[in-house]
């Protein structure tokens, strides 16, 4: 199961700075822990997060072990034109989740 919550303002004025928030469900297993039987628990983390605005990358992050479970990102961008903001999380064991949100820019 993978679910993500994104918050993008539905409407913004041209040139306005908008805040974008994303939250995704992920265990973020570090790979440094061992089970009760002593076997290593394999690393299972999100490796990369990318956000694009009408196809142009506006924010990205490389993630590493020791980042809390369920990573939460907040960043801002300038509302330039109406369109779609795309979010993509990729990680270990083929983890891949995409989400998108529309934004309407008014003059």
């Amino acid at each position, binding site marked *: *199961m993978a*679910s*993500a*919550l994104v*918050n993008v303002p539905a409407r913004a004025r041209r040139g306005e700075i908008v805040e974008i*928030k*994303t*939250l995704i469900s992920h265990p973020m297993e570090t790979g440094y822990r061992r089970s009760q039987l002593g076997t290593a628990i394999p690393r299972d983390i999100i490796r990369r997060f990318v956000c694009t605005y009408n196809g142009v990358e506006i924010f990205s992050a490389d993630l590493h072990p020791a980042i809390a479970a*369920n990573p*939460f990102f907040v960043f801002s961008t300038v509302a330039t034109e109406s369109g779609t903001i795309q979010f993509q999380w990729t990680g270990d064991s083929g983890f891949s989740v995409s989400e998108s949100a529309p934004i309407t820019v008014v003059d």
Partner: protein
Amino acid sequence: MPAARPRRLGLVGAVLAAIAWATTTWAGDIPLAERRSSYDFMSRETRAMQDDDTANPGLLWVLEGEGLWKRALGDAGRACSDCHGDARASMRGVAARYPAFDPAEGRPIDLEQRINRCRTDRQRATPLPWESRELLALTAYVAHQSRGAPIAVSIDPRTQPFLDAGRAIWDRRQGQLNLSCSQCHDDLYGRKLAGNVIPQAHPTGYPIYRLEWQTLGSLERRLRNCLTGIRAEPYPYGSPELVDLELYLMWRARGMPIETPAVRP
């Protein structure tokens, strides 16, 4: 004159008896107006996390629960929504009334047990294990529909003995530390236990996203956590003792609004 003496003693005796009754019944109880949700004891940052639906990780489980609500399963091939319809209308205020008396069981059952009862009886599916992601998601989804609704468990002659039993557990000293729940949460709330503020322990936001757990957890998990903390043997999941305690805690928090899914440190 000599006749007045025993009468005065009788009066004193009655007053003493009244004081004794009052102290045994109400010792340590927090007056209704002074009750505070654990939310009020949290840091500004943690409160902000709970208040923002995109920052509150509990909403991830609510989102998942919404999907499970509509998924047909079991031998009956039915989804929750086939009987209950839109949860936003049908489940409004329901979580605020649990644990509730179940005639088949002859005792109160909590929301998780009710969901599993529906699964086995109506959907003819296997019950979900305690603290499984699916059970937490469904419970969070159902309880989320009661956000803002005042807690109102039904206390009647059928549930009264279980409420009394829950209260007895609350007041009973137990474990190697020989502490009762009441000693910390009625008498010492607002003070510190190591680095943490002791809250009043009102179950207003369950299932909660606990930062210490980095996941969602039920009220039973939290109660077992406290029992381990006082070094007592925790009651097993779904045991009558835990449900009685849940009933007492919900009664104790009567009228307080549901916050599900709450964030706690």
